[in-house]
C-alpha cells in the first residue's frame, strides 16, 4: 500500500482532495434536511414522546375517514371509464355543459374555483370538470342499461305515471298579462291569426315558433323545449296543458299570469325520441330505488372488477347497498 501510494502520490492527493470536498458538500447540504426514522422496520411519520406513529398506522387512520370515500369514487370512476368510451361528441357535450354552468355561476358572482370546491366538498371530485365528466358518462351508462332492459323499466305503468314526451312551444310575452297593452294584444292576435294561415300554421310549428315566439332561448330552435314529464319544473298551467296533449296535438292558447300566452305542441311521446334525454334517464332512475347502484355493481362484474381484500369488496357493496358474490 505504502509502495503504491509512493508511486501514485499525486493521484492519492487529488483523490483525498475530492474526498474532502465531497464530505464538506454532503455535510453542508444535508445538515438542514429532515431526518427519517424507522421503528420495527416501518417508516415513522411522527412521534409524540416515545410513541411512534408509522406510515402504516396513519394509512389505517386515514382509510377510516377519507379513504373509504376516496376508494368508492375510484371504483365508480373505474367502472364508468371502462364502460363508457368518450367520443368527440361526448367531449363536446361535456365541454358545453361545463362552459354553460361556469357562465351561469359567473353571472351570480362565483368563479370556477367555487365550483371546484363544491364538487370536492359534496362529491369528492378534485375539480368541477371531473364531476361533470363523470356525471355525463354515468348518465350514458344508465341510459344504455335502461335501453337493454327497456321492458323491465319503461313499462306502460311508468309511461302512464310519468307521461314522458318531447314538446315545443310559442310564447307571446306580456309585462302584465292580466292587463295587456294594445300592442301586446295585437301581437297575440297576429300569432293567433297566423296559426291558422297557410304559411305559419301549427302543422309547421317549427317555422311558426321561429317567426312568432318571443322566448329567446327556444325560438331559434323552432320552439323546442325537449323532454318533459310530470315532474318538469314548469309553470302549472303550461305543465297541465302539455301533459294533456297526445302526440302531434297542439294546445289552445294557454294563459299564464306571469309570462303571457303559450301555444304548446307535443312533438313526440315515442320512447325512441327521448331515450337518451338526461331528464328521462333521471326519471327512470328515480322511479326505481337503487337502480343506479345496481347498474354500477353489475357493470363492475361485467368488467371483472376484483377486490383482493375482502373488506374492500364488502365496503363497496355496502355503499352500493347491493348483495351478491362478486369477485
Amino acid at each position: 500500500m505504502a509502495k503504491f501510494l509512493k508511486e501514485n502520490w499525486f493521484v492519492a492527493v487529488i483523490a483525498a482532495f475530492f474526498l474532502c470536498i465531497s464530505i464538506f458538500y454532503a455535510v453542508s447540504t444535508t445538515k438542514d434536511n429532515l431526518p427519517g426514522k424507522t421503528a420495527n422496520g416501518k417508516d415513522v411519520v411522527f412521534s409524540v414522546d416515545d410513541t411512534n406513529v408509522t406510515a402504516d398506522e396513519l394509512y389505517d387512520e386515514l382509510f377510516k375517514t377519507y379513504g373509504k370515500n376516496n376508494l368508492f369514487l375510484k371504483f365508480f370512476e373505474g367502472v364508468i371509464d371502462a364502460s363508457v368510451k368518450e367520443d368527440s361528441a361526448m367531449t363536446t357535450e361535456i365541454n358545453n355543459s361545463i362552459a354553460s354552468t361556469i357562465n351561469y355561476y359567473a353571472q351570480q358572482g362565483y368563479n370556477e374555483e367555487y365550483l371546484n370546491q363544491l364538487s370536492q366538498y359534496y362529491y369528492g371530485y378534485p375539480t368541477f370538470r371531473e364531476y361533470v365528466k363523470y356525471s355525463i358518462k354515468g348518465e350514458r351508462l344508465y341510459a344504455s342499461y335502461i335501453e337493454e332492459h327497456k321492458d323491465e323499466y319503461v313499462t306502460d305503468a311508468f309511461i302512464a305515471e310519468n307521461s314522458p314526451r318531447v314538446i315545443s312551444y310559442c310564447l307571446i310575452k306580456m309585462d302584465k298579462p292580466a292587463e295587456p297593452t294594445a300592442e301586446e294584444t295585437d301581437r297575440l292576435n297576429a300569432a293567433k291569426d297566423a296559426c291558422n294561415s297557410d304559411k305559419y300554421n301549427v302543422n309547421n310549428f317549427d317555422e311558426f315558433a321561429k317567426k312568432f315566439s318571443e322566448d329567446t332561448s327556444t325560438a331559434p330552435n323552432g320552439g323546442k323545449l325537449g323532454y318533459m314529464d310530470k315532474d318538469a319544473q314548469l309553470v302549472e298551467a303550461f305543465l297541465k296543458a302539455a301533459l294533456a296533449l297526445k302526440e302531434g296535438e297542439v294546445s289552445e292558447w294557454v294563459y299564464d299570469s306571469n309570462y303571457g300566452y303559450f301555444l304548446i305542441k307535443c312533438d313526440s311521446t315515442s320512447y325512441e325520441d327521448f331515450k337518451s334525454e338526461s331528464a328521462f334517464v333521471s326519471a327512470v332512475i328515480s322511479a326505481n330505488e337503487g337502480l343506479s347502484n345496481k347498474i354500477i355493481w353489475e357493470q363492475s362484474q361485467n368488467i371483472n372488477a376484483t377486490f383482493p381484500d375482502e373488506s374492500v369488496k364488502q365496503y363497496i357493496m355496502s355503499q352500493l347497498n347491493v348483495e351478491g358474490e362478486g369477485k
Partner: protein
Amino acid sequence: MKKIIVLLVSLLCLSMLAGCGDASAKITNPKEVIMTVGDLKVTREEMYSDMMLTDGGTAVNRVATSLIVNAEIENTDEIVNKAKEELETYRAQLDGDLETALSSLGYATEEEFLNAIIDSIKAETLLTKYFNDNKDELYTKYAPLLAKIIVVNTTGELDKDGAKAKANEALEAIKSGKSFDEVAEEYTSNKGLAAETLYTRESSLDTNVLQYLLTVNEPTLSGVIENKNATGYYVIQVTATNKAQVEDKFKASLLNNTDFNNNVYHSLFEKHNFTIYDIETYNNIKNNFPHILVQD
C-alpha cells in the same frame, strides 16, 4: 488498479450524497393492489398518497393531539360518564340510526366513537387545566375587566362641542345618582357597548379607551374620554376588576380564542416533543397547522 481506486473513491462520494435528502416515510407493501376495476389498478401507495394529500395534515394533528391529550389528562369516571351522556344524546337525536351515522364518519364501533368524545372532553379539560395552571400569568398578559361604555358620537346635527357637552351631561347624571343603565339608555349611540362586557388588552377598542382601561385597578367611573379621532366621547363604568368576579367570562372568552388555543397546543406539542420524520407531512403541518410545529 489506479482506475479502480479512483472509481471506488467516486462511488464513495456518490454514496455519501445519495439518500441524504429530506426523509419520506413509506408504507409497507406499497405496490399491493387493493382493487382492480377495468384498466384501473388501485394500489396501497396510490391510496396513501391521495389520502395524505387530502387529509394528511388533519389526521396527523388529530392523532398527535389525541396522544398528547391522553398523556395529560387521565380518564376519570366524571369524563367517561359525561361522554356516555353525550353519546346517548346523539343516539336520541339520530332516532336509532346511530350505527349508520358512525359508519359514515369512519367509526367502526360505538366504543371508537365514545373514545373520540372522551378525547374531545379531555381536550376541553386540558384547556381549562392550562388556564388554571397559568392563571396569574394570563391575568397579567390580558388584563381582563368588566365594563359598560356610553358613547356620544359627533353627527351632522351634533358637532364636537355638542357631543362633548352631551357626554358631560351623561357623566353628571350618573354622578348625581342616576343608574348607568338608565343614563346609557338616554345618551348612548351604541346600546351594545352599554351592556356589561369583558375587555382585555387585546380587545378591539379605541386606543384612548383601551389606554384608560389598562390603568384601572378597581371599579371606577371615568371622566369624559375623547376618542382617538376626536369624533366621539366615552363615559366608562368599570364594574369589576377582581379576578374572582371576571374569571368565568375571562375563561369562557379564552377557551373560544383561537390564539389562546394555538398557544396552549404549541406549548403542549413542544412539551411532548412532537417530531415529524416525513417531509410531506412536515410541509403540510407547516402550511395548515403551524402552531403545532415545534421543530426547526
